[in-house]
């Protein structure tokens, strides 16, 4: 301020003082000299100003707008007939920060009465199509969304979407977050309040306000301390360009010159808009909160447009001292100043007395953390970042204000997290680690990722980076390789379960064993898979040849090791959970492999489409083999190693999957799917210690817990042409008939039915495996 004053005489020069005689000549010389000096100063000043110009433009137009990309979940589609529960809808509404009110009629709010919701959506622009704000009545019945209609007119609504939740932003470490607002998005009352409190003459001054300075000086002298700043909004904005709190005279002078320049080059509205986006409003951990848009989100969890008068006044109050008037730490002080702002607003006629009074009666309306979404799903964000790195430069991601539309489904993600929490809690202090990936069966969209037991912590992402032996999760590839040779194998073909010893990769003898340690003579193929028997699998792998098995593995999307050893068929190779999700997506989608995706589209800051990652698919396995394989994987759940799932989800008829356990119980896996959703779960210790659990006892419960919290479509597949259901004798693999002892109904390729037929009247033998066969045949 003193710098501003001291500059004034230099600019204005001298007004003519009259001096007689010699003095006049001297005076003339002095005057001339001073004029020259003044001209030089003005020239220097102009040069100086010119030298500041690029810096100013850079700040105003360039780097200052480094806006990190915002990352969004997928928008939830609502339609009658959707498999969805009230609890799941509520999870999504909470994720969006919707307020629960009595009517649900204000934008971004909802109400619930039993199974009926009223809600008002916000509307949004999305690369998948625009969505207008709506007021909806949503009713649930029979495990699905049963009615969707307009709240006012009661007309049926075919399809509506909730806006996508913000799940984070991509910034460099310590980079400021940004949520830019356009001037027309800012409530007029907020702008008016800001000007009344901070810069009354904003629309009249040219960058500096001397009356403002004078008024501030008087106020400060009266108070005996600094209570008011004399800076205009323009000066405050300039001050914000520099991160230093340096208050030297030179800095102040520079700022004053820049304020003048700013007013010279830019319109008032541009300056105001810049200010609204620049103003410092607090601190979240190591990150500064700049701008009213972000401030509204941080303090109130809502968009700026939806703030109440009281909330607007509170933001304006904080401008003077975001720390001093921090409403979370100093609520009393913040409230006093908010009320002062409201009083000033009323005095200036921005609002009337009644409005002011009712606003003052409001509480502060804070949310605990309006940016709770920041860093909330680090494992999924990790996947998104890796995806984007293929097509985008890092600088663009952290500075261009891009919008990243991802595939994350909050309800699925949250169910996964809750399941991991609940199941790992059972272990007490020595809990193993867990990782999980959930995927849409039909299109390969990744809808949830858990990277570890502490899933909010952005550390080692086990879902993507931990490669562990997969055990029996590999077996579908072995059985698929067999089913692809229908002239040799059908689901009912019998496999040898006799002990076998072969050479391992070191040339040493290797004797694989079944988990229960026992052997039968022969078992049907489907049962060897559903009971996850090792010995028949090794026999099968040997007779097929490892290369055939590896080809099926590759077709499903699995990574094939450089060297193949017999133990490959028992899952000795190491893979990540994400890789397994890809393999089982192909299995679940009946051979149509869709590359897993975590991003649907990227738009620029104006919503213009930059890239779209659309659904792609490839028929990697023929429909018939896939169908037969899937039949066996359903038996895993209905009566095999995953039959315990029934205790979690009740009816398991629409589910399929496979368990996996590795040597000494170091890793436990479960990959399971419904008609629309697939999850792969792994548990194990980072240091590879044994945890003593199998896929069934360790990983399956997490899966069961997750799915028990979700609505899903049961698996229901059309039988492909050329396949028919026939009765097969379980013990011999020969054709049998309905009602015959030991007959099992299996889908078979009509052209490849077993040649021989057993006698129907056979009684089961009285041998050791009696109980085993009883279970198989459901006796």
């Amino acid at each position, binding site marked *: 301020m003193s710098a501003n004053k001291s500059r004034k005489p230099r600019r204005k020069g001298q007004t003519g003082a009259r001096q007689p005689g010699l003095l006049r000549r001297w005076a003339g010389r002095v005057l001339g000299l001073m004029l020259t000096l003044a001209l030089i100063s003005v020239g220097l000043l102009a040069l100086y100003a010119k030298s500041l110009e690029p810096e100013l433009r850079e700040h105003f137009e360039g780097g200052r707008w480094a806006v990190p990309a915002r990352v969004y979940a997928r928008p939830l589609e609502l339609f009658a*007939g959707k498999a969805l529960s009230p609890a799941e809808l509520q999870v999504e509404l909470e994720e969006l920060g919707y307020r629960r009110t009595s009517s649900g009629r204000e934008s971004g709010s909802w109400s619930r009465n039993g199974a009926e919701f009223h809600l008002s959506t916000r509307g949004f622009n999305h690369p998948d199509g625009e969505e207008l704000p709506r007021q909806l009545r949503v009713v649930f019945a029979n495990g699905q969304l049963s009615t969707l209609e307009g709240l006012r007119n009661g007309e*049926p609504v*075919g399809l509506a979407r909730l806006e996508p939740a913000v799940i984070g932003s991509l910034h460099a470490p310590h980079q400021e977050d940004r949520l830019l607002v356009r001037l027309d998005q800012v409530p007029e009352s907020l702008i008016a309040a800001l000007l009344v409190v901070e810069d009354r003459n904003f629309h009249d001054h040219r960058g500096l306000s001397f009356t403002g300075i004078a008024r501030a000086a008087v106020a400060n002298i009266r108070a005996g301390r600094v209570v008011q700043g004399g800076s205009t909004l323009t000066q405050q904005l300039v001050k914000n360009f520099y991160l230093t709190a340096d208050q030297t005279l030179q800095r102040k002078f520079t700022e004053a010159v820049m304020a003048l320049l700013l007013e010279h080059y830019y319109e008032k509205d541009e300056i105001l808009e810049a200010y609204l986006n620049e103003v410092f409003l607090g601190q979240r951990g190591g990150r500064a909160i700049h701008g009213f848009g972000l401030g509204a989100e941080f303090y109130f969890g809502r968009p700026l447009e939806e703030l109440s008068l009281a909330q607007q006044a509170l933001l304006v109050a904080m401008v003077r001292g975001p720390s001093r008037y921090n409403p979370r730490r100093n609520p009393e002080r913040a409230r006093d100043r908010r009320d002062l702002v409201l009083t000033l607003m009323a005095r200036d006629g921005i609002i009337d007395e009644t409005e002011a009074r009712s606003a003052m009666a409001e509480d502060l309306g804070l949310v605990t953390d309006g940016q709770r979404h920041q860093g909330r799903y680090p494992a999924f964000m990790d996947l998104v970042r890796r995806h984007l790195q293929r097509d985008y430069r890092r600088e663009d991601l952290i500075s261009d204000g891009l919008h990243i539309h991802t595939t994350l489904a909050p309800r699925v993600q949250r169910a996964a997290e809750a399941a991991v929490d609940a199941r790992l809690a059972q272990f007490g202090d020595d809990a193993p680690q867990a990782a999980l990936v959930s995927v849409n*069966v039909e299109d390969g969209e990744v809808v949830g990722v858990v990277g570890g037991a502490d899933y909010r912590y952005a550390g080692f992402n086990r879902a993507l980076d931990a490669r562990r032996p997969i055990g029996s999760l590999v077996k579908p590839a072995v059985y698929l390789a067999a089913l692809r040779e229908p002239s040799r194998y059908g689901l009912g073909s019998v496999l040898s379960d006799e002990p076998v010893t072969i050479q391992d990769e070191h040339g040493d003898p290797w004797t694989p064993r079944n988990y229960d340690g026992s052997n039968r003579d022969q078992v049907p193929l489907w049962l060897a898979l559903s009971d996850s028997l090792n010995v028949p699998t090794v026999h099968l792998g040997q007779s097929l040849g490892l290369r055939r098995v590896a080809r099926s593995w590759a077709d499903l999307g699995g990574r094939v090791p450089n060297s193949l050893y017999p133990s490959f068929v028992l899952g000795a190779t190491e893979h990540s959970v994400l890789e397994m999700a890809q393999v089982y997506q192909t299995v679940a989608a009946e051979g149509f492999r869709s590359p897993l995706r975590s991003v649907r589209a990227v738009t620029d800051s104006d919503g213009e489409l930059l890239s779209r990652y659309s659904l*792609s698919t490839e028929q990697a396995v023929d429909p018939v083999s896939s169908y037969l394989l899937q039949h066996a994987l359903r038996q895993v759940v209905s009566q095999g190693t995953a039959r315990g799932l029934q205790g979690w989800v009740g009816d398991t008829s629409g589910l399929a999957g496979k368990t996996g356990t590795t040597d000494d119980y170091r890793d436990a896996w479960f990959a399971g799917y419904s008609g629309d959703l697939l999850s792969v779960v792994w548990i194990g210790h980072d240091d590879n210690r044994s945890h003593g659990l199998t896929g069934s006892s360790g990983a399956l419960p997490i899966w069961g817990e997750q799915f028990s919290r979700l609505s899903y479509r049961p698996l229901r597949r*059309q039988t492909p042409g050329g396949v028919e259901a026939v009765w097969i004798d379980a013990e011999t693999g020969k054709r049998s008939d309905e009602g015959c002892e030991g007959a099992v109904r299996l889908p078979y390729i009509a052209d490849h039915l077993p040649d021989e037929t057993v006698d129907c009247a056979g009684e089961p033998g009285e041998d050791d495996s009696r109980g085993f066969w009883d279970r198989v045949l459901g006796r």
Partner: protein
Amino acid sequence: MGLNARLLVLLLPLALGACTLMPPEHQPTEPAPEPEPAEAPEPDAPEPEVDEPPEEAAEPEPEREPAIPDAVIELVADAREASQNGNYDQAAAYLERAVRISPDLAPLWQNLAVVRFQQGDYGQAEQMARRSIRLADGDRALQRRNWQLIEASRAEQGDEEGAHEARRQAEGI
């Protein structure tokens, strides 16, 4: 069959759109099948079965034809409009949403195949058509249309032999 036929009629303009894009030498030799008679299942067509656990085989077959949600019909209408305006990316986005809602509807995949063809993505056009064929058991007209699209896609990629094979498949239905 009512609902399915309704959807197919709704979708037909898209399919025809693809045909007009095909170069003359790859025009299907026969005219595209008319919707009305061809939509009805052939009397001798085997009824596709739904996979059920053997124990429940005696129960009546569950309803085979999936109900088409209004949401899907809306999205298909949007897709058709976008496609007619030449905005194939947008059309594809609508259809992908529809597919997510009703992934078992063969006509949706067929339409996606058409849009991929319009986008010039012939590889994916074939794959989408294959997916449609997998689901279109018993719907010969749709199967034939899919094979015709595969034929055109292969021809576009210079795979004359493959195109010929696809035509053979289409004619064999």
